[in-house]
């Protein structure tokens, strides 16, 4: 279990780092220095692909939160219902019920 969570943590770290890296790349690629036309064309595409990667990484982060929530929910155990009643009383009640139900002689008010 702990291995699973360390992997999740490392994924979060990796994704955040990658997002920053990609953003940094975009800024770096936006410079128009003495570059050839071909380089410009490639870099323009790289900017868009980096933006798409950022979106994908963010979606992954959302998926991780979902995974964590699910793991938490499934780890919860419902509280057992504490319910105590006198067995004798219960027995008497059930027996009385049986009498009424089967014969109908005893008035229900007596319960």
């Amino acid at each position, binding site marked *: 279990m702990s291995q699973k969570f360390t992997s999740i943590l490392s994924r979060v770290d990796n994704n955040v780092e990658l997002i920053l890296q990609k953003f940094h790349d975009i800024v770096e690629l936006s410079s128009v220095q003495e570059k050839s036309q071909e380089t410009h064309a490639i870099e323009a595409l790289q900017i868009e692909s980096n933006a798409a990667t950022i*979106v994908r990484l963010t979606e992954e982060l959302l998926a991780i939160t979902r995974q964590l929530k699910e793991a938490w929910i499934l780890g919860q155990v419902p509280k057992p219902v504490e319910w105590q009643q006198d067995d004798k009383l219960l027995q008497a009640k059930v027996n009385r019920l049986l009498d009424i139900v089967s014969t*109908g002689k005893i008035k229900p008010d007596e319960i």
Partner: protein
Amino acid sequence: MAVDKDNEFLNFAPLLDQNSALDDANDDEQLPLPQLLAKIIAQRGSFLDISEDKLREEIENEQLSKETATDQDDVEMEAELPSTQEQLRSYEEFTKVKQEIINSVHSALNESSLSLDFVSLLISCVRPAAGSSSMSPHLKQHIKIGSLSSDKVDPPEDTEKLQLDISKVGRGWKLESLERAAANLKSSSSRLKDEVAKEKNFWSGMVEVLKSNEVITSMNIKNTREVCVKYGYGDAGSTYYDKGIGILKKDAITGNLFFENSAPAKEEKRDKIVNVRIYEKNGENINLIGESNLEPRLRTFKEKEGVINEIAKARYFLFEEELFYQLLREAATLISLQVSAEEDKIVIDLHDEVIEITQITPEKVHAPADLPSNERADLIQIYLRLMLYAEHKHNLDQRKIPPLALDTESQSPPQTSFLSLIRPIIVYNRHERTLDSVRDVLESIILNLFENDRTKTKDHLAEHLKINKHCSESSARSKDPFARISTPPASVLELATDSLLVRVKLTSLFASAYSVMNLTLENRTGSTILDVTLNDVRELEDCLNWAVRNHDSI
């Protein structure tokens, strides 16, 4: 091309082999006139500038310089004379040098012919005829004419301006892609924001479900892992096919939590609820005397909303469904006990009254008319539900029993569920009726004994008739609230008269619901004078009458 070299040489070889020491004068004289003229023009310029005087002067100068030159030569000759012998090259050396020169000329020729071929090939692209005429046969054979082309390329004249243009284009492209990237990020962010809101909705619903103490679990349904809620009675001992497992799903638009039954619904299932009616048999007529009131049960579901209520509702109706299913199943085995089962109706005939159990849709539920036995009908439906719970509990207890080893000798017969829902009502009802008739028999005997004095009889019965009901059960020790219901009824009637103690033991069986009567007569001294087992109340009456009359003689 290396092979070509030698071929080319052969063409020129005779020329080269001739004595190469052709002097200038001879050369000029051998030239045809037009070429000679051209040469003169090239050397001297136009004939306009050439005059006889000038030429004479030139010749004289030439001869003068020649004379001085020969003088110098003579001086040199004289100086060199002493070492002539050593310095004169040998013939071998001479031929060697000659060979070197020839080689150089050959390579020059080769180079030039290669260049010619190259240029011819280049020209052949534009003018094939002109080009092919000067091409070497070898080239013609191997390379297609016109296969080499050329074009004029202007060197970029203004690199700075060009760079500016490129950077302008690049700037435009980058601006465009930055804009697109920004738009993408923006739309994605708003989309993700919505998604997060939906997630929040979903999980808060989930927490709500968790807080209401539902069991949330994950299951593999159709090979996908789903988060499910177990709202049914599958874990509580129910053997019904529908275990009541709902898949918790997220609404695509609002993200709200909703749940869906995981069991494949064969047909459109309708929520139904079990209703109980009691009819009174009055000769041929059947009158409704009681109906259970289901309204308060449903009211709670109508008031509330939300997924928890939905789950509670699903649980409730699942239970109702199972209840009716189990009732029908049991009713089918109870035909011998005057129980008839139809598709959605079970009729239990209890001699003087009829209990009718039906399944109705919630829409049809209405408050019953004010009838005398409404409360009893209500109690009957409560009883039925309680019995189903008891059945579940019994199943659960059965599951907890560790399995028997297979090799044990005494293999117990498979445990069949002895709990039943309707049967106890009928058995106890009949038992009670039999008890009443036995009581009537005893009363009639006492009445006979006291010669129809009713008040006396009543007093005597009140004093001496002891009815001990439920004497077979172990309920005194058992803590199970259903101890009595799960055991067949048995009662003992004891009546003391002046000379006799009459004891009638009534034992009913669950299977047949008929009562067996065990009549015991004891005299004053306590010794048993009669012990007989009878099956019918009439037999009992006859026997008792006979015994009371003749007990002295027994």
